[in-house]
């Protein structure tokens, strides 16, 4: 009811539909369609489980995107804390009821899908902090008292996720939160202190790392260290991308993925597969598409009047950018394999849901750009 009221208030549905940013919608759609082809290729050129379920998810969550975007931005602002708390509870329940797969406990069994609350938390934290800093005055911004809540709100989910263990997602959640704080105006010195503390705590943190995580970091530093073990993924991914050359091996002809040399090709390494089949120009196109999406979000941030809207859009754009870049740097051998999906392209319901939800709020900022949030 609350939702319905929010949609029907203010201007009519027609106006709202007119004020949608169609460039952004179109970019997302194109990327989605590309991802379907890529998924089709990972299934060996057949409509199998991954392809079918990816297509279904894309359209379901694309619908969610519209639904979210038609809801008043005021609503999302008002419910931000609540959303954060709901996501946090979900994250907490993973700790107790979560599904364990390959040594890490990340998922909640919701019968129709396995939900990964850590993905949702990526958006949840941004929402929470955007609202928080929207309300904190510029004078109080850098007082320690007002730093306390954001730090708690950031550290708690990050620790929860890190101990699942899921180092990659926890880092990405943290990155999103830090971006909000910094954009809001928190002084550089606090970040510098944090880095200092982090470095001091690093040896302690390393001692808590699982052996496979340590091995991944060492392998990143020297992939040939263990070419058939942990270094295998990086090496094979580089071979796949490099062998794609300028124009790629052609759709469905990526021998590296087709012959199973490529690990995790539906999820983290989907860009590798695409890059192998479509080469440098294909990869460049994907990169530009992501850049376009990011710049559209930033543009919406420029248009929107509320501090909340601006903070949210800028932060989300930056976080989105970070997700993309981290994934690509990982598969290009520039970062250790930490396990982070490529937004929209990668297989995975929770990531798709979180991304579409986040983008929906962005679009809501666009549609209700002139409405004050409080």
């Amino acid at each position, binding site marked *: 009811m609350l939702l319905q009221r929010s949609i029907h208030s203010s201007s009519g549905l027609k106006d709202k539909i007119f004020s949608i940013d169609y460039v952004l919608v179109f970019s997302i759609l194109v990327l989605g369609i590309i991802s379907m082809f890529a998924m089709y290729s990972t299934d060996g050129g057949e409509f199998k489980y991954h392809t079918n379920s990816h297509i279904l998810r894309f359209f379901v969550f694309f619908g969610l995107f519209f639904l979210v975007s038609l809801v008043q931005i005021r609503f999302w602002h008002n419910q931000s804390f609540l959303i954060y708390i709901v996501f946090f509870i979900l994250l907490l329940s993973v700790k107790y009821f979560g599904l364990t797969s390959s040594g890490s406990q990340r998922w909640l069994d919701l019968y129709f899908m396995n939900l990964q609350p850590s993905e949702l938390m990526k958006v949840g934290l941004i929402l929470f902090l955007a609202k928080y800093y*929207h*309300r*904190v*005055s*510029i004078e*109080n911004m850098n007082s320690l008292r007002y730093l306390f809540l954001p730090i708690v709100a950031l550290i708690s989910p990050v620790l929860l996720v890190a101990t699942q263990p899921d180092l990659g997602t926890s880092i990405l959640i943290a990155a999103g939160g830090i*971006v909000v704080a*910094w*954009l*809001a*105006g928190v002084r550089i010195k606090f970040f510098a202190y944090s880095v200092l503390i982090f470095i001091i705590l690093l040896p302690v943190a390393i001692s808590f790392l699982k052996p496979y995580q340590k091995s991944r970091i060492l392998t990143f530093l020297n992939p040939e260290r263990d070419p058939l073990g942990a270094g295998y993924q990086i090496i*094979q991914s*580089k*071979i*796949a*991308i*490099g*062998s*794609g*050359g*300028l124009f790629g091996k052609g759709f469905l002809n990526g*021998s*590296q993925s087709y*012959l*199973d*040399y490529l690990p995790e090709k539906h999820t983290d390494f989907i860009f590798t597969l695409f*890059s192998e089949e479509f*080469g*440098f120009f294909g*990869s*460049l196109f994907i*990169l530009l598409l992501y*850049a376009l999406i*990011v710049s559209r979000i*930033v543009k919406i*941030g*420029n248009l929107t009047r509320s*501090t909340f809207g*601006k*903070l949210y859009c*800028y932060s989300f754009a*930056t976080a989105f*950018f970070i997700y993309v*870049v981290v994934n*690509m*740097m990982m598969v*290009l051998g*520039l970062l250790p394999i930490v396990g982070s999906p490529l937004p929209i392209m990668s297989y995975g319901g929770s990531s798709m849901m979180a991304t579409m939800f986040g983008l929906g709020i962005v679009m809501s900022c666009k549609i209700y750009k002139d409405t004050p949030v*409080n």
Partner: protein
Amino acid sequence: MLNPGSGNTVIKSKLISRRMFLLTAAKAVVMLGLVGRLISLQINQATKYKSLSDKNRFREWKLAPERGVIKDFFNQELASNEPLYQVHLVPENAQNINKLFVRLKVILNIPEKKISYLKRIIKKQKPWEPIIVSDNLNWSEFSKINLFLHELDGVEPVVSVARKYPDNSSAHILGYVSQISAKDLQTKKYLKDLSVPGMTVGKTGLERKLDEEIIGKIGFQRYEVNAFGKRIKEIKINQGQAGKSFKTTLDYEVQKYTNILLEDKAAAVCVMDIYNGDIVSLVSSPTFQPNAFVHGLDKKYWNSLISNEKKPLTNKAMSGLYPPGSTIKTLVALSALENGIVKPSDTFRCKGKIELHGEKFHCWEKKGHGVVNLRKGIQRSCDVYFYEVARKLGVDRLSETAKKFGLGKTVLSDFVEERAGVVPNTKWKKKFIGQNWYIGETLHSGIGQGYFQSTPIQLCLMTAQIANGGFKIKPRIIFDKNDNSLRDYIKFKNKNPDQTLPVDLAVNNFNLQPLFKNQENINLVKDAMFSSSNEPGGTSYRHRMENPKFTFAGKTGSSQIKRFTEAQREAEIKQSDLNYKDRDHALFIAFAPYNDPKYAISVVVEHGGSGGKVAAPIAKKVIKKVLERHDMRQELNYSIGEPV
């Protein structure tokens, strides 16, 4: 507390926008970095990564080529190929190699020793390289493997081809093939790229001589494989090239026939066309099973071969060294005639022995042969006559003639096992024994004893070159349709003794090499050989052939192994009373038919006793067989020579 003032909002907005601008700039830099990385991987290093990707993708398996076939003159296969059922194992495709071996052990009954051997091999080679678990399965074992195949990951049933010899009759001249050894790989350059599991190489005989050409070129199968080594699809197949096939001059029927005649004897027979040097038959006895070597030799069988005193593995026709005995008398006579030492009419008196510097030299006929001239000397094989001739001739002139007629050097080329033998002379003795020559040794040489060592194939060549009128021929075992025209030359000469040669024959025979000074001397020796085989008193008279089609002229020989003591001589000890190992070797050489010679033969029976009694009857039967098949052979020879 929370204070969202409007003026505040504007400042805040500005701050946010400024910081966002910084972030955007950073993003652009990062984007450029990513593009740079893509350029580096996909453009600058594309070639490197493409080859790495192909290295991942393709894997090659080598295919052993099919060995060429060896045929006889009538295109019968002497060494052929048969399908072979093998079980290969690709270690990386097996889930649990130990469990797999347990299963295979039960199914194929593999001994524990072999399994540990295979496991050692697996450790040495690359995980995708197949090893041969079982080399030669019969059909029922092979179908059993196929039945259980679904539960034997990594096991591959393979139908290949392997050498197959129809029988053992030509085992020595053909040789045998066996698995490549480390030594083969080191010593034979052509094997460098041929190392394929299951590859066999020729170890002896023709198989070894022809190995480089007969082995063929290796093929390969290129497969696309997935990350788990599973073959996804065949990309390219190169069957390689089957080895070259060879046709020999041998006659399989004669080989088989001779082999039966020689059964249980340690003996060798060589038959040669006296004009073109075609070796029609080359048999050594006892024989062995060449098929037993193809798939790894059974130890028991090997030991039985090694311990057999008749030495079945030796090719006696080419590597057996025997004193030529009295067969050398043909050459002693010829040498003496050519050098003008004796005239055919010169006589000596044989009293059964002569004495020289106090040493007694006995004739085999204790009573003596009485007055002996050259013809009678050969007919009766009178030792005293040849002692006298040799003494006058001297060993150096004898050795010259003997070498001219083919003794003392190998007859065929590229047979590692062929031996050259010894034609002694004064220089030779000085060099190899370091002593001066004694005149007594000349006498021994005159009857083919002492240092003289010859192989049956040499004796056959010697006989052939006497039989064809004294012309040099080049013996051959690989068929060559280029017949020389010696045959036509002789025919023409026989029909028109006084005419000059027609031009074409003269041209063709430009490079005929006569081994004589006066051909009349050759004819004298041939006539004497005729009398030895066909006139009463001749040493092989009892085994003559009266049908002129088969009439042969020959010379017997019995080469002494051990000197008779005076006591034995007095007691008239017979050969059959001696220990096997102490008996004389029985030799016989001949050519036939006498009035139109076509073939020469040599027979050696180790420890057979008397040449006339043991070797001549064998020669007689073989000659008959060969001559019966002569027309067939000629027909084929001419049909091949003509353009179709």
